[in-house]
């Protein structure tokens, strides 16, 4: 057998070279915020369609399970829902009256608060976290749909997270309950500022996240108080509901308080989210 000239790199050398590349990538991404560059576009056309397909299949399976409800169940559910609709309609008319009054008063005071009128776009969650240590997920909309990094993501009435990376037709969301997240927030009733941060340990144990650095000298904040994103946060738009206070106790310095918050969003069963198409404008 004729020996061919073949260049084989010894495994140890290759290992060291690849390790060096990893460190260089880490340093490079730390300095410039690089996260894949041109490779992202490839990933976009290879993985995102497949992830979408798998997600669609998975949803169909779970949906067909709910399809199997009996007629009686559906009828009774329908009745319940009708009653609920009536209740909600009366509530809604009341609210509309109050809203009109509020608008009038705001006009009188020349205030215009447009917290609730953020423009949003809906997106599906197509892949969940890459590891048990982090809480991030992929959604099926990206820069082609006008999404940019640092846009806020909500679901129903609560804050879900923030966009950390955008590809042409996918983006990655880091959720509020991730161990890495810190949100500058405030108590809705007293407007006192505090910091809300995700904690893997707390989330695993009791589905709660941490609240720290709350100044509350008059003991006005109580269990059940709503916590929203603050107006001084650099990345989160003001007034988005995060959750309700579940526990609160004074810190050892007797100046601040800390405790726990139960988030309003059900992070375990997240399927659709809304992305707010607006980033917070800050002076840099």
């Amino acid at each position, binding site marked *: *057998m004729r020996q*061919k000239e*073949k260049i*084989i*790199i010894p*495994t140890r050398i*290759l*290992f060291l070279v*690849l*390790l060096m*590349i*990893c*460190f*260089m*990538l*880490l340093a*490079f*991404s*730390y300095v410039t915020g*690089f*996260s*894949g560059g041109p*490779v*992202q576009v490839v*990933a976009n056309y*290879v*993985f995102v369609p*497949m*992830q979408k397909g*798998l*997600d669609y299949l*998975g949803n169909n399976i779970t949906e067909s399970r709910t399809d199997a409800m009996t007629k009686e169940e559906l009828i009774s559910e329908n009745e319940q829902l009708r009653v609920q609709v009536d209740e909600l309609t009366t509530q809604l008319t009341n609210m509309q009256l109050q809203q009109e009054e509020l608008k009038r008063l705001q006009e009188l005071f020349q205030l215009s608060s447009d917290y609730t009128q953020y423009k949003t776009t809906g997106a599906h969650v*197509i*892949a*969940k*976290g*890459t*590891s*048990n*240590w*982090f809480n*991030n997920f*992929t959604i099926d909309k990206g820069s082609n749909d006008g999404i940019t990094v640092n846009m806020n993501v909500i679901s129903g009435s609560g804050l879900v997270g923030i966009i*950390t*990376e955008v590809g042409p037709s996918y983006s*990655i*969301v*880091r959720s509020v309950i991730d*161990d*890495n997240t810190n949100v500058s927030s405030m108590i809705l009733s007293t407007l006192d500022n505090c910091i809300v941060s995700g904690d*893997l*340990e707390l989330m*695993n144990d009791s589905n709660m996240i941490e609240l720290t650095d709350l100044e509350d000298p008059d003991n006005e904040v109580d269990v059940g108080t709503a916590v929203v994103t603050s107006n001084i946060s650099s990345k989160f738009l003001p007034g988005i509901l995060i959750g309700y206070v579940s526990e609160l106790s004074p810190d050892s310095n007797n100046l601040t308080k800390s405790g726990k918050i139960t988030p309003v969003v059900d992070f*375990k069963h997240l399927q659709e989210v809304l992305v707010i198409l607006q980033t917070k404008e800050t002076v840099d």
Partner: protein
Amino acid sequence: MELKPFAKKVFSYVLLVIVYFLLHTSVFSKFTLGGIAPNILVILVSTIGFMRGGNYALYIGMASGLLLDMFSGSYFGMYAFIYLIIAFFNGMLRQWFFGDDMKLPLLLIGFSDLLYGMMVYGCIYLLRGRYDIGYYFMHVIIPEIIYTVLVSLVLYFPIYYFEYWMNKTEKRSERKFV
């Protein structure tokens, strides 16, 4: 080396990584037990490591890690680093591996996942002042190892037969070109 068998080989490995990556992020992440998902890519990287070893394992480890980095949105390069070390470690133990025995693969996959857990904890959590290692050990690392080893009872065999098939085609193509 002839181009055609080589291209076929690369293509097959790319396909394998894609399938296991999709299983990791889109399928098994939905079947969590107590909030814990199994680590499918550790099964792939570790198995290729001790079955084939060498440069292939390193390339596959690096590729899987970079894919995860791309879809995790922070610290680009961290997963590549971790999976590279897992691939190298398993590649070193290749001479212990004999075909049909299931004990060693399971042990190595479990150990690789332990290595993975410890490295993520050490790289990210410890540096941010989360010192309660006992908690993370009992509630994240150990459950993940158990789940991963259980899943690997099934997902080990596709890789095993893939490697078997690769070896056969390699030998055949070698014979053809003598």
